[in-house]
């Protein structure tokens, strides 16, 4: 995750929110988002098929990492606020608006919360967009963003393999491979890979089961 200056590490023992690998990539016409499916309480996997890709609006999703309770509560609140805003405006909300709402909440309550969120979606004004709202409540737009404890292990892979202008299929493959590598190394990430493509046409979801994950020569 992104931090400026000295980390506020009095009670946060890790700069990266725990227990997840999440990722989002922009492409021409939409976004691809992905996540692992493991929720842990200590060493016990409370849910091995979690869905961490949460719809906030018809064409806006968020990928959640950190405290499951915190992120669910924030997502519910933002879903309500965005729905209300969209009805008032009488048009589809902007992805940036959704990201701003997340940021408002994550920043205002930063002392109480442990939430790292990636907001991604499609709107008619700016097409596919990915915004990251890491722990602490900063918000920034990025063409590709990774988050969660597993993300540390794949910064190198993402930096070297991402190219601007990838197609939807290339983005899906890139995301699945990156998340697989993260899940192999991070004990708090695992299970299946959940992917979704959000575009003008709507939302297509898919699941890659454990035995269908991409294989690398050493793993």
């Amino acid at each position: 995750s992104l931090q400026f200056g000295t980390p506020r590490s009095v009670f946060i023992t890790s700069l990266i929110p725990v227990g997840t690998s999440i990722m989002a990539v922009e492409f021409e016409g939409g976004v691809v988002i992905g996540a692992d499916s493991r929720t842990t309480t200590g060493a016990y996997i409370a849910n091995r098929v979690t869905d961490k890709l949460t719809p906030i609006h018809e064409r806006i999703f968020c990928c959640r990492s950190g405290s499951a309770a915190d992120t669910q509560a924030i997502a519910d609140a933002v879903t309500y606020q965005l729905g209300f805003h969209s009805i008032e405006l009488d048009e589809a909300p902007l992805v940036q608006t959704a990201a701003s709402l997340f940021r408002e909440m994550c920043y205002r309550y930063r002392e109480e919360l442990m939430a790292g969120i990636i907001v991604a979606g499609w709107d008619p004004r700016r097409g596919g967009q990915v915004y990251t709202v890491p722990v602490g409540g900063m918000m920034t737009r990025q063409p590709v963003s990774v988050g969660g404890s597993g993300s540390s292990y794949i910064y190198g892979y993402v930096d070297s393999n991402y190219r601007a202008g990838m197609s939807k299929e290339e983005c899906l493959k890139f995301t699945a491979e990156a998340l697989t590598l993260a899940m192999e190394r991070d004990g708090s990430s695992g299970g299946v890979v959940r992917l979704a493509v959000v575009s003008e046409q709507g939302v297509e979801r898919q699941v890659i089961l454990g035995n269908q994950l991409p294989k690398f020569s050493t793993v």
Partner: protein
Amino acid sequence: MDSHHSYSQVKGVSTGTTILAVKFNGGVIIGSDSRASMGESYVSSKTINKLIQVHDRIFCCIAGSLADAQAVTKMAKFQLSFHSIQMESPPLVKAAASIMRELCYNNKEELQAGFITAGWDRKKGPQIYVVSLGGMLLSQPYTIGGSGSTYIYGYVDAKFKPDMSLEEATQFSTNALALAMGRDNVSGGVVHLVVITEAEVKHVVVPGNKLPKFHDE
């Protein structure tokens, strides 16, 4: 290697660092960045050499407290040369790694340094050994270490192939170190690589402006 605790708890100068070693067809490459830091915000050296030669065809690279690492490698170098003279033959890479392991394990309370030992010997050819913080010894076909290594686990897992050529292995090492240096604020400077084969030991330095660039640079 147990390396995703940042070494900022080390007192004094630490090699918050990225180190790696990889076996290829006919030899090993051992490599590192060149930054030494105090805490997370002061770079005490931009050009430190973390690749220590402990014998003709055996090198170590160090991560953690620089003082501890220098003390251990100095001791290991002495013990290894003594051993080699007694045996009247070049030492095994495993012997070098074992000496490091003994020192690390027996002094585990005081020391805060981890090592990668790599080299070539007549018995088993190219080999890589990891001696981690508490004194565990492990042999691996490739290994990464130091604070910057966290960011390149995915990359090396995806890219490593057994029996690479020298060119492929050099590209692999340079890319991996450049990626780690790009994300870890206590790794940086230039890339040092040492190529160890039966025939020779070659030291390659890749300066900052010749490092591979990635999409956002």
